[in-house]
């Protein structure tokens, strides 16, 4: 049996083995055991068979043999013969694959390409009715020919164009269309198509608009967007298409589908951008007439935006390389009717169409310098006239807004890349109106009533823009603007809406970017002079001034000066023993300014270390024993100072940090000074104990260098320090100081580098009183220490099981249970100090691990617990849940839901509010989980929302929000029975005492009401 016979027998059942037979034949051709003539002759009877499918399979066999041959096996002669043969047989199918292989060979020449192409064209009617897969192959062959033999096809001229357009018509398959569009685009861009432009255009445009929607799991990954983009580049490929494209596209703009309209607008933009000015100019007015409807009568916001883009694209094309401002250019003739119409609309500046008219002018003006000039000339004088005539501020504001939009365009023109102002010496288009504009905007800002906030903000924006237009305002005029802004920031009554002040500071910051000298010379001294020295009793407006200074100091030179001046100010204030809050504000300002600098590489770093860290820590220590300004020993001041020094110390190098570390408790005081460290002393006055706040910040900021502390004296090692801090925390009565001592303990434990340290910590957690070597008394609660140490250990996942066993065990205790329950809220909470920034050891999986141990334990212990301690478990659970990511909690939902529902019956408002928040998140993420509990959930939430005496506003609000998210998430059939009850139940809440609760009740009721009225569009 010959190969071809075997092939024909196999091909229907097993394509792969048939393929292998063809490959074998190819092998024997290569090894010359068979000749090509043998192979072709063996086909003999089959290729003349009456049955078309047998003929086709036989040719297919030959194609597969050819495809399997190495590129150089066939001689030029053989290629020629085979090509001829396959072209003759092209209508039999199966020949395409062979031809594709042949055309890729080096020995395939121009005549053969033309022959193949002709064969395709002649049989296009047969080929078009083939199934998808074969048509795709044909198109791929055509595409290959275009790629490898483009010159040959091009030489056929218009005939080829007609042939190809015939071949590509009536296609539906997205893969084929992608190929068709790219073939067409090549022809459109590279060939001379003048004579056949319309035919060619129609062959592409007949596919517009693309309405293809890919099937759900599309194997080819072709999106509608891909098709649209390729078709768009065909339609916009040649200016020859203008007479066909514009009218037909505009016709499609009348479509009612927003998607089609959007596609049309984007295609128009592509066309106007790529066609030449002459082609666009013929249609520019027609286009404007259609586009203006979309823009002026905005129905869909984004269609109006796209239309503006198209309009701008026209102006850009018409203004390309244009320098003449003559009224006869394409651009001028295009702009004239537009500016006239916009002028008309702006006569009534408060009306709906005025705003889009302004947008049109602005987008046109920003298209080119010439356009800017023409728009300004046509529109600014009438605007100024209208401005004078209108009598209400709302209209004036609308007019200013249009002017501001035009200024925006002018600024944009300045920033445009490669923008050299045409004829450099020519004056700025806005120049003739400078004085008038400056006057109008200045008056609007400075002489209008202060309540007209939006009007003044608009004026302010206008002045800022005028300052930003390059080479426009004189420095003295900019100085004037800056003075206005200073005045607004410094002297205007801050009560009421602060928008103007905010905008003014923002504007000063903007100006400082380009004109920082003006800010240095005018604003900076004015602001500094406005800082009180010292402030009167309840004066607080210095905060605004300081804020202004802080925001202005973006430039390094400004911020250097500012820090210097602030430090000397601080010095004077402290000498006069001034107000604590002023001191705090000054320190905060320094901290803010430093926070915006890259401290580690700052050349002033060591001077900050000296002048701020060493000096002020020492001052505060001395003040705590009475010899210094008392403002420094206020707890709030120490906290701010602490953050400030921590910021600086963090930036220091290891060596310097060690030198700071050893001063953790001595606080840079000299030996023999009146200040004695707090450690190991009894009955110290509170003011001195407050220095522990600074000690904490030092300890935190030195990071691992803290170990240097143990080298100072023999009696300080990790264990003794931990015990002593534990003692201090136990006896401490001031909550703030205790908090900072606890933070120190947690820092020490968490950063401990030895396993002995960890077991010491564990021991201290089990029995704090023993560690502190004081007697346990009922008046002292050790719970905080237990939980802080627990937190420190858990965050690094050391001794996790023991720690959790211990803290969970405390919940069943009648005396320390309630505080312990609240302590669970601490365990996983993000902490400012125990963080990466201060060298804490944090493990990524902490939350998951802790939750996965706690959740089942809490659920089990809860069931077993006595009634009196049950609430403890619910409170603890709520404390854990608030910090665990939802994905993690979802795993235990089934166990936890009953507990959460019971939590809603607790009187504790914090827990209740937090539980409802958890339930809200759960219902949002996995509505299926709550379905089974709907009845009790809905009832409890309604109770929580509608009983204002028992529930605080936050609980009521949260309950309503939770109820509101059910419709649409939880299955309608589950909710339906409760619909009427909820709508009725919320009714009294509409009269709640709190406004935001009422608001939520309205929304919640509306969602439930709409639930049973199915959407009519759906």
């Amino acid at each position, binding site marked *: 049996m010959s190969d071809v016979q075997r092939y024909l027998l196999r091909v229907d059942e097993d394509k792969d083995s048939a393929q292998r037979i063809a490959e074998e034949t190819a092998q024997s051709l290569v090894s010359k055991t068979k000749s090509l003539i043998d192979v072709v002759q063996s086909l003999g009877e089959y290729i003349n068979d009456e049955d078309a499918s047998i003929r086709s399979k036989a040719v297919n066999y030959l194609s597969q043999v050819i495809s399997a041959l190495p590129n150089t096996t066939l001689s030029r002669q053989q290629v020629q013969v085979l090509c001829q043969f396959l072209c003759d047989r092209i209508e039999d199918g199966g020949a395409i694959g062979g031809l594709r292989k042949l055309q890729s060979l080096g020995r395939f020449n121009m005549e053969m390409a033309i022959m193949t192409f002709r064969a395709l064209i002649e049989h296009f009617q047969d080929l078009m009715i083939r199934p998808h897969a074969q048509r795709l192959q044909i198109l791929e062959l055509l595409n290959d020919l275009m790629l490898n033999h483009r010159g040959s096809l091009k030489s056929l001229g218009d005939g080829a164009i007609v042939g190809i357009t015939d071949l590509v018509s009536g296609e539906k398959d997205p893969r084929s269309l992608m190929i068709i569009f790219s073939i067409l685009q090549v022809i459109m861009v590279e060939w001379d198509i003048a004579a056949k432009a319309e035919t060619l255009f129609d062959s592409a445009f007949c596919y517009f608009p693309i309405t293809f929607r890919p099937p759900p799991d599309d194997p080819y990954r072709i999106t509608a967007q891909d098709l649209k983009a390729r078709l768009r580049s065909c339609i916009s490929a040649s200016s020859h298409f203008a007479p066909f494209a514009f009218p037909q596209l505009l016709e499609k703009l009348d479509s009612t589908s927003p998607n089609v309209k959007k596609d049309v607008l984007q295609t128009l933009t592509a066309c106007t951008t790529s066609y030449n000015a002459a082609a666009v100019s013929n249609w520019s007015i027609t286009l404007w007439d259609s586009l203006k409807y979309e823009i002026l009568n905005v129905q869909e916001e984004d269609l109006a935006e796209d239309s503006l883009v198209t309009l701008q694209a026209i102006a850009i094309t018409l203004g390309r390389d244009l320098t003449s401002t003559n009224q006869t250019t394409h651009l001028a003739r295009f702009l004239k009717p537009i500016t006239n119409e916009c002028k008309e609309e702006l006569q009534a500046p408060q*009306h709906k169409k005025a705003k889009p008219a302004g947008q049109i002018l602005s987008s046109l003006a920003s298209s080119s310098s010439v356009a800017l000039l023409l728009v300004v000339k046509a529109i600014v004088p009438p605007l100024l006239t209208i401005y004078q005539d209108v009598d209400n501020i709302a209209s004036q504001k609308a007019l200013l807004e249009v002017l501001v939009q035009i200024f925006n365009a002018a600024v944009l023109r300045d920033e445009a890349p490669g923008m050299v102002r045409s004829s450099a010496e020519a004056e700025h288009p806005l120049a003739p109106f400078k004085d008038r504009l400056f006057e109008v905007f200045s008056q609007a800002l400075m002489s209008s009533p202060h309540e007209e*906030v939006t009007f003044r903000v608009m004026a302010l924006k206008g002045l800022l823009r005028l300052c930003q237009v390059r080479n426009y305002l004189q420095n003295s005029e900019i100085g004037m603007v800056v003075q206005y802004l200073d005045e607004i920031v410094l002297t205007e009554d801050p009560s009421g809406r602060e928008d103007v002040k905010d905008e003014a500071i923002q504007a000063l910051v903007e100006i400082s970017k380009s004109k920082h000298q003006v800010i240095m010379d005018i604003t900076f001294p004015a602001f500094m002079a406005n800082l009180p020295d010292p402030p009167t009793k309840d004066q607080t407006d210095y905060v605004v001034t300081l804020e202004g200074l802080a925001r202005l100091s973006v430039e390094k030179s400004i911020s250097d000066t500012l820090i210097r001046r602030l430090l000397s100010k601080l010095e004077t204030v402290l000498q006069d023993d001034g107000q604590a809050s002023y001191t705090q504000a000054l320190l*905060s300002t320094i901290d803010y300014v430093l926070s915006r600098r890259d401290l580690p590489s700052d050349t002033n770093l060591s001077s900050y270390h000296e002048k701020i860290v060493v000096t002020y820590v020492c001052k505060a220590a001395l003040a705590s024993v009475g010899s210094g300004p008392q403002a420094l020993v206020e707890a709030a001041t120490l906290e701010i100072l602490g953050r400030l020094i921590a910021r600086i110390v963090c930036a220091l190098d290891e060596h310097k940090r060690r030198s700071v570390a050893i001063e953790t408790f001595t606080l840079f005081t000299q030996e023999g000074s009146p200040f004695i460290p707090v450690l190991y002393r009894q009955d110290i006055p509170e003011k001195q104990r407050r220095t522990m706040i600074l000690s904490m910040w030092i300890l935190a900021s030195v990071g691992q260098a803290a170990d240097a502390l143990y080298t100072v004296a023999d009696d300080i090692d990790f264990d003794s320090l931990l015990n002593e801090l534990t003692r201090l925390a136990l006896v401490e009565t001031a909550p703030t100081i205790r908090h900072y001592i606890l933070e120190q303990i947690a820092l020490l434990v968490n950063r401990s580098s030895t396993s002995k340290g960890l077991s010491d910590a564990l021991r201290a957690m089990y029995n704090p009183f023993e560690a502190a070597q004081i007697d346990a008394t009922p008046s002292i609660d050790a719970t905080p220490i237990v939980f802080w140490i627990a937190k420190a250990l858990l965050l690094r996942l050391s001794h996790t099981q023991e720690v959790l066993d211990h803290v969970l065990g405390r919940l069943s205790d009648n005396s320390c249970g309630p505080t312990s329950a609240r302590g669970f809220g601490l365990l996983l909470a993000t902490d400012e100090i125990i963080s990466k920034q201060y060298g804490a050891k944090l493990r990524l999986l902490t939350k998951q691990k802790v939750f996965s141990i706690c959740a089942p334990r809490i659920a089990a212990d809860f069931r077993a617990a006595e009634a009196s301690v049950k609430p403890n478990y619910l409170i603890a659970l709520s404390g854990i849940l608030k910090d665990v990511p939802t994905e993690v909690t979802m795993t235990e939902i089934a166990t936890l839901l009953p507990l959460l529902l019971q939590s809603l019956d607790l009187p504790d408002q914090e827990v209740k509010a937090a539980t409802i928040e958890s339930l809200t998140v759960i219902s949002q993420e996995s509505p299926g989980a709550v379905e089974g509990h709907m009845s009790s959930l809905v009832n409890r939430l309604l109770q929580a929302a509608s009983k204002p005496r028992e529930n605080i506003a936050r609980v009521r609000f949260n309950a309503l929000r939770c109820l509101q998210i059910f419709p649409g998430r939880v299955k309608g059939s589950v909710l339906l029975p409760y619909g009427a009850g909820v709508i009725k139940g919320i*009714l009294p809440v*509409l009269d709640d*005492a709190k406004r935001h609760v009422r608001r939520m009740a309205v929304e919640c009721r509306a969602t439930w009401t709409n639930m049973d009225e199915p959407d009519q569009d759906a």
Partner: protein
Amino acid sequence: MSEILNANPTIRSAADLPSRRREPTKKTKTQRPFGLLSSTIPDSAYTPDPFNPSSSPESEGSDNDEEVEPIDEQEIYDLIAPIQDPEHPLTLGSLSVVNLPDITLSSTLPPTSLSNPSRPAITTVTVLVTPTITHCSLATVIGLGVRVRLEQALPPRFRVDVRIKEGTHSTAEQVNRQLGDKERVAAALENGTLMGVLRKMLEGC
């Protein structure tokens, strides 16, 4: 939609509409005394201390919790201003169809009477609607929308009265009669097409 009746109405920008002055909340005031300057302090610094209940924000807000915020004209305005106009993608507030001075609240019956001391005060809310043009045929629909919105959103002790502002509409009397007639309002709400329009208007609220 058929022909647009008033294609170029006057509009007010959202920022200029009357709104409740935003009072700085107590919490941010006490927590960040220096505004921007305190912005360097991370949020985690404000986590309440579970062992020191007096530091938690709740207790601080509890006296605040007692304070009653009565329903006032501004609140009524906030309920109806975001209703969409049936022919423009704009709100009734920005078209000045509803205006704050045209909303009045008057208590019809004192909160307590001898027979039933716990009976709540009956309050009548009157809203005067200003159509954008005097022959606007949609005035009834707009009035109905305002009415439906208020009836859904206000507690039952409120009586809603929606009318066309005097001198702003050519057939104001007819429209008012229609809006005041309970039967006709109820009948209108049975009408599917009309309800569809109303639902669209109330969508953005």
